[in-house]
């Protein structure tokens, strides 16, 4: 492989990794606070993209307003999902909420098939500016790459600020340790958990819209594979850790692209490598790269 190819691969890897990282950040936030693997995360992502798609094409909204409305819509959906499906099970064994999350994922996918139709729709609703190509030497970079990187870093910083510098953040972190005690301290646990879901779902929709800008099609199952990959990225990074999700996402994207770049014959099986990496990493470092302090309940 020539040097210019390697550089091109690295750029492509950063772009894919940035998308994984953005989805993984939402995943890890909900997990970090509730210890719930929200398998419906990928499907809320899909719903957010559909909302944006329909608001832009049906109500002729400007693209940026449509994106915002889509993100807010996904937040509202996340709120409802938590209210209907997860809240009644908060004190049930963890496996019950996990299975409910899987059920919710299937429900949202099937709902989208019924409501929006099963045929992929084209998502060409953003300005041409984003698909412009910058040519530096032999390397070609899409403007969207910088946009995705910028949004990912910005959202991560905002999230860290929220978690560590605000009262709500303190309450969120307290809930992750002990719900009854937090509630005794005067925090409204239900509201904080609702807020966690709203923010997590809005992050999912943001990443979904970025995803659709890069791969411009919308279909009911579009959230499944990115969701699964982002989950792996979050686990690699240390689930529950926000910087870990970011590192895990970039690592996974980069490795996937480089495997294809270095061993083109294995390209058809690149998904398998994501899982192999996960298994190997979990064998040597079960809690991921960034270890999250987890309390042993006695």
């Amino acid at each position, binding site marked *: *492989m*020539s040097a210019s*190819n390697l550089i*091109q*691969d690295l750029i*492509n890897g950063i*772009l*894919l990794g940035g998308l994984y990282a953005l989805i993984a950040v939402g995943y890890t936030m909900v997990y970090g606070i509730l210890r719930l693997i929200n398998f419906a995360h990928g499907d809320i992502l899909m719903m957010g993209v559909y909302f944006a798609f329909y608001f832009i094409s049906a109500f002729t909204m400007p693209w940026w307003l449509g994106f915002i409305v889509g993100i807010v819509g996904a937040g509202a959906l996340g709120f409802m999902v938590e209210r209907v499906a997860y809240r009644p099970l908060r004190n049930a064994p963890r496996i019950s909420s996990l299975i409910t999350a899987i059920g919710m994922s299937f429900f949202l996918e099937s709902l989208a*098939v019924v409501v929006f*139709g*099963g*045929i*992929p*729709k*084209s998502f*060409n609703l953003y300005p041409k500016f984003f*698909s412009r*190509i910058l*040519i530096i030497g032999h390397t*070609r970079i*899409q403007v969207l790459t910088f946009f995705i990187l910028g949004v990912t870093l910005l959202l991560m910083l905002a999230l860290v600020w929220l978690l560590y510098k605000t009262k709500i953040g303190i309450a969120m972190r307290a809930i992750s340790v002990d719900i009854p005690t937090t509630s005794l301290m005067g925090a409204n646990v239900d509201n904080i958990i609702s807020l966690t879901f709203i923010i997590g779902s809005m992050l999912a929709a943001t990443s979904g819209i970025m995803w659709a800008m*890069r*791969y*411009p*099609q919308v*279909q*009911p*199952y579009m959230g499944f*594979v990115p969701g699964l990959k982002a989950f792996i990225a979050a686990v690699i990074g240390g689930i529950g850790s926000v910087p870990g999700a970011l590192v895990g996402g970039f690592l996974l994207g980069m490795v*996937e*692209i*480089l495997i*294809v*770049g270095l061993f*083109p*014959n*294995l*390209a*058809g*099986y*690149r*998904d398998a490598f994501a899982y192999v990496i996960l298994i190997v990493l979990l064998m040597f470092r079960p809690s991921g790269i960034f270890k999250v302090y987890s309390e042993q309940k006695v």
Partner: protein
Amino acid sequence: MRKVLIVLSIAVLLMTVAIAAGTIKIGVAFPMTGNIAAFGEMTLQGVKIAQTLYPDVLGKKIELVVADNRSDKTEAANVVSRLIDYNHVAAIIGEIASSHSLAGGAIAEQKHIPMLSPASTNPLVTQGKHYIFRACFIDPFQGHVAAVFAYKNLKARTAVVFTDVVQDYSVGLSNFFIKDFVAKGGKVFREFYQSGDQDFSAQLTDALAKSPDVLYVPGYYPEIALMARQARQLGYTGPILAGDGAEAPQLIKIGGSAVNGVYYTSHFNASHPFTSVGKQFVAKYESIYKASPSALAALGFDSYLLLRDAIKRANSVDPAKIAEALRNTKNFEGATGYITIDKYGNTIKSAVVNEVKNGKFTYVTTINP
């Protein structure tokens, strides 16, 4: 109360039987949702048009039972079982993707129900089977057509072939193309991907380093559209050649201007119908849908007519007799040409090459067997 209920349910049962006796049930196993849902939609349009024109056979109405395989291999087998065991269909039109027809065909073969695929071109679909047929040409021919077109018309000498490793269609067609293209003196490099992949930047970076004259992508439209976009973003301006899996409105909707310059081998072009039935079909389709019919719609139309013709000649709805009649189809005039089904259940027909030009599927040339 209970007695009334029992009597009522028996009455309902008898009525259903009575109604069912008046119709001949034909199952339709298509992908109506999921990755390749547009294929199911287009083919079903053709089937429905044929049904409006010829709604009955042997004095009975033909009833279509549509089942959705969700673009999924496992589900493709499930829907065939369901159509046979639960709906008791006399024959099945389906499936579309070759890998789906392989999965569903195994069930139909085992249960001795004739199954006619409109568009599965992989040779394995009918191989060694007595109840599986198709209304389209097969991939050794399609690969040959693509190789001839790439070498002679596009003057390509170096090709990079992209194979979708989970689709039997793509694996088969890639190999047939490579065999013919290399035999002509062309040079081939290979890349691989998988249905559902959305990022092809790594494969394309590697492929473009070989400075190919043509990219051959015998896959399905969702991946071809995304791949074309990414290829153009990486600076590739040359032609992209594909198989019949490329044709769907979504190719253009998703691919945008990047798919201009995509050539593909196909069964039919509405502007150049081969037969007078083809002309009638185009006229009827345009009057109903206000658009030009796709190759898949024409194949769906032909599948229905072939099956109806077989039932008529068999003069029975006995599955074995229908299968026997299908096997003896000779020079049947369909929308996609004169169809003769050989003893292996395959069809020999001419192929057309189309090009995406200014967002339209435009006829380029016809290549005969």
